[in-house]
């Protein structure tokens, strides 16, 4: 059941609240990138993907699959999965705690529904997504495989190996996305490694490249529509979502400083006030 743009806005606001409350409760975690990719994941799980928590299996047969390559963005990932119905919302309160299914980085060993693959060591998820897309082709399963990477993560050489592989094997059922927020732990990407214009690079690599506004649901949904229209072209699609790290809270927005830092109690209060409450309610 696809959600309207208004509904998506409400869900993403609640997910941002979840992210902040999760990392504050755990006193650790990665809020910055989680908040820059919140709208992308919200649109993906509540409007775009052919997925169903009730019939989910790790093999993903007959459904779309999603792999989070930038594995540190578990706050947004877990909140999205819980809000989509994969596991109880209350479980978000166990994030990063001993014995929790909500490990610091995605794990398949705790049997958390919705998780297809472990990730966190950067640069590897796109390869797994490409392999899964090839598996779906061999099975004549017409569903898509989605994968979210970070722009900092794209400094890893393996991302570009996977990029070559996906083109060579004509994986037009693979839709990769980059959370292009321009920031990484040590500072702005341009000042840390200077990876340049990702659009030109992915185009040169032979991908179908779409650039979209990652905090504008109309733009996000349009990008997905264009990406799916690429099926049959023989080319994989890369959607470069222009985003802002820490989006939604003024003192967190646009800086790398919240990549892996946790707000203080008074900052959390301020942030939650800025976001506002939603009818969905906190966990």
């Amino acid at each position, binding site marked *: 059941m696809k959600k309207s743009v208004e509904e998506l806005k409400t869900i993403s606001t609640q997910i941002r609240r979840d992210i902040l409350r999760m990392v504050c409760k755990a006193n650790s975690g990665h809020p910055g990138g989680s908040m820059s990719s919140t709208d992308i994941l919200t649109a993906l799980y509540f409007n775009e993907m052919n997925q169903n928590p009730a019939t989910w299996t790790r093999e993903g047969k007959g459904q779309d699959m999603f792999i989070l390559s930038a594995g540190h963005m578990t706050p947004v990932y877990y909140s999205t999965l819980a809000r989509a119905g994969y596991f109880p919302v209350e479980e978000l309160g166990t994030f990063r705690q001993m014995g929790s299914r909500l490990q610091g980085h995605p794990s*398949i060993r705790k049997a958390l529904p919705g998780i*297809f*693959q472990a990730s*966190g060591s950067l640069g*590897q998820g796109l390869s797994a997504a*490409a*392999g899964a897309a*090839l598996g779906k082709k061999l099975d004549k399963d017409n569903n898509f495989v989605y994968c979210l990477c970070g722009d900092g993560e794209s400094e890893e050489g393996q991302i570009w190996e996977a990029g070559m592989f996906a083109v060579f094997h004509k994986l037009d059922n693979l839709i990769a996305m980059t959370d292009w927020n321009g920031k990484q732990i040590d500072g702005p990407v341009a000042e840390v490694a200077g990876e340049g214009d990702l659009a030109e690079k992915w185009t040169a690599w032979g991908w179908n490249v779409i650039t979209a506004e990652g905090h504008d649901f109309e733009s996000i949904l349009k990008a997905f529509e264009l990406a799916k229209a690429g099926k049959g072209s023989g080319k994989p699609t890369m959607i470069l979502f222009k985003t802002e790290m820490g989006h939604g809270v003024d003192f967190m927005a646009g800086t790398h400083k919240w990549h892996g830092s946790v707000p203080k109690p008074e900052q959390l209060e301020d942030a939650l006030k800025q976001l506002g409450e939603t009818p969905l309610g906190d966990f």
Partner: protein
Amino acid sequence: MKKYTDTGKKDTRSGFGVGLLKAGQADSRVVALTADLKGSLKMDAFAAEFPERFIQCGIAEANMVGAAAGLALTGKIPFIGSFAEFVTGRVYDQVRQEVSYGKTNVKIASSHAGITLGEDGATHQTMEDIALMRALPEMVVINPCDFNQTAQATIAAAKYVGPVYLRFGRPSVPNFTDPDEPFVIGKAIVMNEGSDVTLIATGHTVWESLQAAEALEAEGIKAEVIDIATIKPLDEEAILKSAKKTGCVVVAEEHNMAGGLGEAVAGLFARALPTPVEFVNGADKFGQSGTPSALMAAYGIDAAHIAEAAKKAVARK
């Protein structure tokens, strides 16, 4: 003493090629990936029969490991093939994250292992791969001894559900095991019974140990030879049973000391049955260019060195 006959020298990697084809014929979920080493890994027959299920990855091993994990997610049984160094050391993190921790049903086909890779020299001769793979939780580590056993081990690996490291070599070596003997993962194979010393061997050193046992017999020493084709999980029961009988042990492997079969066996004895052990392995060194047999002799991993080690072990009883 049971005599083994070399039915004609063959490389163990060709055994893998035969096993892969049979596994592919038996199960359509089997797929094969390589990083530009189709010929070296003897995947040609599989690729010719199942072109859609043969996946060329180019010289990009890291992506190959991840792509195999992704294929496994969708229910495939991927075999990834390259040189031992390039499917272990080069991609250790990928194997750890995507295959081992990720618990994907990927089979790592590791060819040209050890010093018998020969002339290419130390860059390609990994003597550390068993240690790396043994260290990963739940990883099954198999190191068959000849062509026939490698073919059977490949078939067994395809049937087993979970990550497997399957190690084999480049040179042509004696082929002496029963071609129809099914491979049982985790089971040691007593090749020869003896009462004075146990020769524990894996891979190419099994034949060398059988030769050593013959030489020792001529000197009145009865050696028991055990083929540890599965290094992990280790058949501890079979090793302890033999050691209780013979009272001393030699462990021979084409691998360095650190983290190898020798240390696995020594750890077992330290816990369960203190026993004198002599080690025949590559010690703590890198290899160099040379012919396989010259290298095995120079690095002390051949039949002559195993027989010497056996005498030392017997003297320590």
